[in-house]
């Protein structure tokens, strides 16, 4: 494997991994596969775009490129606002749609169907507001750095670094804090967790905030490294599911590892077969896992 394929795969895999953590958390704690998760990625990217554009109008100096990067201070500042707003969007979806359906106590597949409807609504709203033309955080072209026979833009390297920090922080949060333990308790056994005094409503809110926040970050990265489009979320959905299942449902490190594997498989395919088959890679990986080891790498049977 050439170092360039490895680098492309890592950058791509980091975005998939961040999104897949949200999928795996919703799946293990709320117990349904959320087809609207991809839309949190797209909404996160667009909210950041709108906020950073707004900041640029207020204070044009904020858009001056920072060092080697393509964007100015407006984007990192906007990112915090976008994470908060994407989390608010997820909480709103839960309050209006998923919560009431959960309260009714029907089959979890109804929630899947509702998430499918919500995804279409969210995606088409984006298309209505921002049109389907691709958008970018910054206009300028960036010169790639060359080192060890690899080319990568400073933006992409920064994304990789941020993703690594965020994933480690998320993992520590889930394994080492009281709320994190409560989340794992609810995913193991909701009734028992309720009996020992875990507030399941609070836990569910936390899952949405965490999942949507990570999705927003993945969206901003995808927007920086690739481009911003209304369909960017739905295009990532299959890789996200494949990564979450490959890693084992409920496992945060598993989701990240799954994301990296899918990312590497995609970059290898793009190099060896052709970019037009990229979208089929996640499906191929998914079929292999379902045949060989349906519970994934770190999943419990």
């Amino acid at each position: 494997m050439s170092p360039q394929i490895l680098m492309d795969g890592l950058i791509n895999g980091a975005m998939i991994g961040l999104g897949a953590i949200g999928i795996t958390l919703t799946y293990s704690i709320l117990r349904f596969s959320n087809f609207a998760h991809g839309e949190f990625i797209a909404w996160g990217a667009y909210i950041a775009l709108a906020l950073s554009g707004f900041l640029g109008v207020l204070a044009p100096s904020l858009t001056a490129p920072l060092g080697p990067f393509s964007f100015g201070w407006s984007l990192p500042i906007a990112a915090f606002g976008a994470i908060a707003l994407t989390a608010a969007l997820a909480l709103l979806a839960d309050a209006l749609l998923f919560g009431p359906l959960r309260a009714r106590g029907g089959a979890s597949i109804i929630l899947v169907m509702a998430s499918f409807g919500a995804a279409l609504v969210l995606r088409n709203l984006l298309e209505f507001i921002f049109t389907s033309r691709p958008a970018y955080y910054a206009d300028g072209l960036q010169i790639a750095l060359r080192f060890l026979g690899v080319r990568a833009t400073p933006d992409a390297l920064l994304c990789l670094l941020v993703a690594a920090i965020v994933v480690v922080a998320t993992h520590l949060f889930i394994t080492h804090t009281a709320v994190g333990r409560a989340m794992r308790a609810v995913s193991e056994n909701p009734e028992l967790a309720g009996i020992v005094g875990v507030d399941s409503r609070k836990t569910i809110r936390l899952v949405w905030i965490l999942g949507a926040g990570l999705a927003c970050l993945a969206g901003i990265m995808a927007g920086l490294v690739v481009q911003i489009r209304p369909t960017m979320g739905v295009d990532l959905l299959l890789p996200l599911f494949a990564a979450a299942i490959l890693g084992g449902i409920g496992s945060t490190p598993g989701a990240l590892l799954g994301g990296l594997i899918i990312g590497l498989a995609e970059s290898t395919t793009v190099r060896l077969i052709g970019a037009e088959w990229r979208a089929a890679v996640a499906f191929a990986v998914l079929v292999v896992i379902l045949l060989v080891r349906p519970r994934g790498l770190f999943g419990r049977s």
Partner: protein
Amino acid sequence: MILDLVGYAAFFLTMALTYAIVCLGLNIQWGQTGLFNVGVAGFVAIGAYVSALLTTPEAAGRIGGFDLPIAIGWLGGAVIAGAASFLVGALTIRLRADYLAIATFGVAVVIRLCALNLEHVTGGPFGIGFIPRPFASYAGNPTLFSLLNLALLALVVLALYLALERLLRSPWGRVLRAIREDEEAALALGKSSVRFRLQAFAIGGALMGLAGAAQAHFIGFIAPDDYLPTLTFQVWAMLIVGGPGNNRGAIVGAIVVWGVWAISASAIAAVFPAGEQARAASLQVVLIGLALCAILLWRPRGLLGETRIVSRHLAGLSQSRLALNHETRND
């Protein structure tokens, strides 16, 4: 003028009836068996492409074009789509219900990719044209031509409806419902839930393929963009509106939702300027998506709802006792 109107109504109804077939297929999978298929568009596309390949005349630069009769194309489309459903089902039906949803979503993505990229078979982004149309010799008289096509589709839908109603009331159909309602009890009675589910999923997929073939031959032209996720979503809206589990509901839902869709599309064409229409069309999907969520929240049984008792042996039971049974089961 009146002839134009008749022609348009016939065209509209024929399209709606092709959707009704997809909807009947989805009804077997979801309504009767509780299997969630997010890749409806993929299975419809398989039927359309297979039938187009079998029946179009030979074309330069493209494999296929076997110039076979239309009926063989329809049959081939249904069989291949059914086989594809069987494979996807065999892979996932033993696992959690969500895995089937994810796998079918993947199938739709991959089928679209194949349609776009395998240019020597599918014609790539430009698709396949010159698909033979039934009653093509009457094409000189558009009204008659539309009416003949409508009659053909109506016959197909009627035949499928009668067959499915029979199937639903047969021992096979009752086992399906038993599995959906209480899998453990059905297992205890010695019914292999995996086998029955797989059969239902394959039959549903075959119907979707048949519908895709019928639609392709009615329009005469197919391209990858005809099979976007929006199609899956329209069919789901049709089934949910009509009432999952009810075959008549599936047909009524298809006609109602297709009607709402066609009317709102022409409203958008009339209200918005040409440059803004693509954008406004996304609003159409938003509205119908909201409607889908609202129905799930407030009227989960749809317009017609499911006939809960299909066995004639139980037909004599009084409604109150049934309601009581139903209550206790839900506890």
